């Protein structure tokens, strides 16, 4: 047999055909999994995707732009190739068309304005370079905005928030992953009970962790208003945070407020404190950083202040991995704040921890995200989500890295977060647990006992099923903690000399 004999390739540009990147990633994966297909890429012909195409060994198609779809398939034979293209056509044809069956069916609206009558909020998740314009369109149509998109430059963010203030609207974001409005979860949101606590969140997964810990302690949420990770920076000046505080202060359902954020710029911190002093409402600041209280500490403080009983967050231990072992801790996260918090907790115990989201250059991971020592990686960082879905939706990158760590003799403990809730992957444990089990098996073959610690952010009411996720992860040999700080501490203790 000659390798490569019979290999057939198909490259096609579909001019002017557009689908969002998540749909196309899913289509690429579906086709790539067809029998006899070696590789497949269905994507908009952006510069990045053309690079990917060239990387697959195809020639860059001349004249294709970001408005054109490119289809590239490599298969074992003509038949398999044709099958893959037929599957793609079927997938693309499955697009929803509103008003089917009417005499003159309306096409889907192309603008927010055309759909805005009676609406209150625009949820925008378009690519970052265009998303601010889309948010402006929503403000012009009189809507509040949740701007899920990341990679939005700061200049447009400021312009947007200034315009929102003039129009009396709230801009949640950019890079706002989570919001809850009167029980409705937007973006990544856990199913939590209603209650008196209002959240103002510059951090999506920070807010998710707090809400889940509150929920487990029987304390419910009125609203969670996201503001975007940069809102409390000096440039943006906390515009959305201040607006969100005002909204919650005049909301009948809200009795206490928690602001969760990185420590703000000093001038902004003063402005926020001044506003808090003006408002007749108890407001806790959960400012995350090294040496500061963890999210779990904040949750405990708030639960007690609200007059509820606090019990330590639940955990499911893995008996096999209690003893300490020498080696490195490797934290692989989908949640940015969960990653940062784990980094602070671990470095308090183990010293230097390198990370792709480290604020100091000395702790920064190189671009290949490799290091011999302890490390924590946020796979949801802007740089790693360019051109691909968020790791809470798509586990591919983390599964690959889990398998790599299983074969790395230096790796002693894997620390992994799993975030449940609306918007997240429908069954993350189904993909992560087998990878964790395989990593442990591979390590065992090298005479290593690889410990796995999972930080699980979720509630019993989440659509993925908390129990089902726990069971699958336990079966893979992981210990599981509803408190992210506990998970990080447990993982650190396992390698601490």
């Amino acid at each position, binding site marked *: 047999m000659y390798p490569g004999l019979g290999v057939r390739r198909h490259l096609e540009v579909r001019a002017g055909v557009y689908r969002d990147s998540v749909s196309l990633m899913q289509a690429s994966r579906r086709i790539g999994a067809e029998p006899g297909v070696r590789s497949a890429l269905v994507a908009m012909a952006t510069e990045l995707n053309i690079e990917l195409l060239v990387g697959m060994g195809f020639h860059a198609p001349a004249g294709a732009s970001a408005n054109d779809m490119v289809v590239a398939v490599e298969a074992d034979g003509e038949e398999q190739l044709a099958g893959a293209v037929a599957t793609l056509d079927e997938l693309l044809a499955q697009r929803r068309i509103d008003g089917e069956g009417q*005499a003159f069916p309306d*096409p889907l609206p192309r603008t927010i304005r055309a759909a805005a009558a009676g609406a209150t909020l625009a949820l925008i998740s378009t690519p970052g370079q265009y998303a601010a314009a889309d948010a402006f369109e929503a403000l012009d149509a009189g809507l509040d905005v949740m701007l899920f998109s990341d990679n939005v430059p700061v200049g447009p963010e400021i312009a947007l928030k200034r315009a929102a203030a003039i129009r009396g609207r709230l801009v949640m974001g950019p890079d706002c992953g989570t919001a809850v409005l009167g029980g409705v979860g937007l973006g990544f949101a856990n199913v939590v009970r209603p209650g008196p606590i209002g959240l103002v969140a510059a951090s999506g997964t920070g807010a998710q962790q707090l809400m889940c810990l509150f929920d487990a302690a029987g304390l419910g949420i009125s609203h969670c208003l996201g503001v975007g990770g940069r809102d409390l920076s000096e440039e943006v000046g906390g515009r959305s945070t201040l607006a969100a505080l005002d909204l919650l202060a005049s909301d009948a359902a809200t009795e206490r407020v928690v602001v969760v954020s990185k420590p703000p710029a000093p001038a902004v911190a003063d402005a926020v404190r001044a506003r808090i002093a003006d408002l007749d409402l108890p407001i806790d600041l959960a400012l995350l950083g090294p040496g500061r209280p963890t999210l779990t500490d904040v949750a405990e403080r708030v639960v007690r202040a609200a007059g509820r009983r606090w019990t330590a967050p639940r955990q499911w231990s893995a008996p096999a991995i209690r003893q300490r072992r020498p080696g490195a801790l490797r934290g692989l996260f989908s949640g940015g704040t969960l990653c940062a918090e784990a980094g602070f907790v671990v470095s308090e115990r183990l010293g230097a921890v390198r990370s792709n989201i480290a604020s100091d250059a000395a702790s920064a991971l190189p671009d290949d995200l490799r290091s011999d020592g302890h490390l924590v990686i946020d796979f949801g960082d802007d740089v790693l989500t360019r051109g691909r879905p968020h790791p809470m939706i798509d586990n591919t990158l983390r599964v690959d890295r889990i398998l790599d760590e299983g074969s790395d003799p230096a790796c002693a403990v894997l620390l992994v977060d799993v975030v449940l809730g609306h918007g997240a992957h429908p069954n993350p444990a189904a993909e992560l647990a087998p990878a964790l089990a395989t990593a442990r098996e591979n390590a065992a073959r090298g005479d290593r006992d690889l410990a796995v610690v999972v930080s699980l952010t979720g509630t019993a009411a989440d659509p993925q099923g908390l129990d089902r996720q726990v069971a699958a992860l336990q079966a893979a040999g992981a210990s599981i903690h509803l408190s992210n700080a506990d998970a990080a501490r447990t993982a650190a203790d396992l390698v601490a000399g």
Partner: protein
Amino acid sequence: MDLSAEPRVVAMGVDILADALAAQAVEVRRIDWRPPLDGDALIRVLADPRRRAANEQALAAMLSAGAMLVDIRPASEALGLKPGEFLHAGPPISWERASGPLRGALIGAMLLEGLVTGSEEAEAALSAGHVELEPCHHRGAVGPMAGVISSSMWVFELHDPANGGTAFCPLNEGLGKVLRYGAYSPDVIERLRWMNTVLGPALRAAVRQHGPVDVKSIIAQMVQMGDEGHNRNRAGTLLLLRELLPDLVDTALAETLGAVVRFVASNDHFFLNLVMPAGKLQTSAAAGIEGSSVVTTMARNGTDFGIQVSGLGERWFTGSAQVPEGLFLGTYGPDDANPDIGDSAIAETMGLGGFVMASAPAIVQFVGGSVPDAIRTTKSMYEITVGENPAFSLPILDFRGAPTGIDVVAVVKTGVLPQINTGMAGKVAGTGQVGAGLVKPPAECFVQALAALAEAAPDPFVAG
């Protein structure tokens, strides 16, 4: 934000986030998002604090504009045109770059004015640069197809009582071999002479006896009678005739009355030349508003397609005119067609023509479509316009007003281009009309205009 009410969400972007809302039984409407034609200038223009109010002002001016036919006179009087001065359709152009139909029409106009004795002499004079060429739009005039107006031609004079504007348009010659399609044979010239000596004076006498004719009101009626005001003007023409016929009978010479009435009644497009100046009045009312991104002119000279924008003064933003798609007369085919030509896209600029295709189901096949296509076309034009004109309401859309005031920002943002219904001229000078169909402007006109709006906008990213 009202925290006490359940959110009703419009979702733009990845489907899974909308799916997650649907799974919570929350009302969610999805937007069919596409990448914009150009991303960088958009945010600057959207952030321009003047834009919304400026566009509202532009729309209000357009909606308020009236169109009264007040007189019919020679262009020498009405426009001060001298022999040897010629107006033409579209943005400015030289003889060297002029297309076949424009060249043919200019040759014909030289012959009509008696400046030359033959077509070769006319061509020589034109190529030597001995004549003055200027866009109709620069003089408050509009001309269909080649749009050539010379000093002896008679023009309609329309007045906008609300905004004080005046606009002009020559009289329509009919279909087939006519000057505006680039034909200049002796019969064409002879017809133009008759229009100057018989038709014009007869109509003038009738209009003067009748008093100002409310053209806007006739347009409102024609749109409800199956005309879209660009490729179908049959109802409008008959309504005009009904209005003027008694006065024509009263004032015309007995020996010319029959010929005049027959000429108007047999030309389904006679009223186009009144829709167009009404459009010019409506769109010029919105011109010159700082910060406004509303299109006030779309016009083609057979080589370039040009637009003008309210907030950008007299500047033209041009791209290559496209060849329309549609049906051809006789044995003509796509190879015979000249690129898009004429000021008649003022119809779409005012919200008629392709924008109200939904109201003209009788001609959808003529321009190569189906009735559902026509309705979809009109609905998609609402996506790129700032408002609706209640004066021109569409029965089939439950009397929704015509989509009005094309917004450069919306065009670039959505990539939805204005839909224009148009006639097609033969590309060889002297041919005449070869067909009719649909055409869109080149996207670059709008991209350039947006860049200029961004340059003119205050820096949105400075602190404060």
